[in-house]
């Protein structure tokens, strides 16, 4: 059995809407934010590591062509 009979009464939370939604909203925002941050962090790290590998590979090729 649902505790609310309409969407508007659900949103109103029996008159406690600001409190309930503030608490849930902050929790959701922080948790979603944590996931997005962790994913972006991984992307940044891999991009930097890739860039470094490419730079070193290019430098190695450059040295070889100078030597020949």
């Amino acid at each position: 059995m649902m505790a609310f009979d309409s969407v508007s009464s659900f949103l109103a939370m029996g008159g406690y809407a600001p409190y309930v939604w503030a608490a849930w909203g902050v929790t959701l925002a922080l948790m979603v934010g944590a996931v997005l941050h962790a994913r972006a962090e991984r992307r940044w790290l891999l991009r930097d590591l890739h860039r470094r590998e490419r730079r070193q590979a290019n430098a190695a090729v450059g040295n070889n062509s100078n030597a020949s």
Partner: protein
Amino acid sequence: MWRIIHQFGSPKGFYDFSARLQPWFWAAAVLLLLTGSLWGLLYAPADYQQGDSFRIIYVHVPAALLAQSAFVGLAVAAVIFLVWKIKVADMAASVMAPFGAAMTFVALFSGAVWGVPTWGTWWVWDARLTSMLILLFLFFGIIALRGAFTHRDSGSRAASVLAIVGVINIPIIKYSVEWWNTLHQPATFSVTERPSMPAEMWMPLLLMVLGFYCFFIALTLMRTRNEILRRESNKRWVRELVRGQ
């Protein structure tokens, strides 16, 4: 046994093993949190005294429990790092601290907005609230201390010592509602007693608590893997991994 610990404790071993564990914890977290949220927000009956404001419990209690567990996890990781010099433990500790601080903030914030309609105030210097605020400052202190040294190892060791010393605050938080006369109510869940709430109220809470823990484990695995990439970036296996992608 030692071989398994050693393998799991090596950065590469942990990186590979956690990659396999991670999706299960994410899946469990999403499933538990979605079910718990819908159940708690839509189907749990309103409290006969607090009305619908009691639905804050479904974020407040899990966050508060997890905040304390994160601190214990931090202290355990600190001991493993200091005693056995396992670097992965320190990397895990470094990613547990910010999320632990976030959960402590969630517990304090949701408690404050819950306090307004039920206690008539958003803050009292009550033992439970004050010890949780101290927990938040301990998390901040550990994060700041780690960053305050030029040598990473010195920062790691200082942060570890503070985590181990600070764990004394955890039993204080737990027993604060029994030792002192507090406005905060005693524990909602107990291993030894039957819950004082009806099942349709505490079942979603249990799902939320488990969901928060799975989320924490998944996030810690994910960010520890990031930290491994960062700190081990000059190791051969990391460079081969990057080249292979």
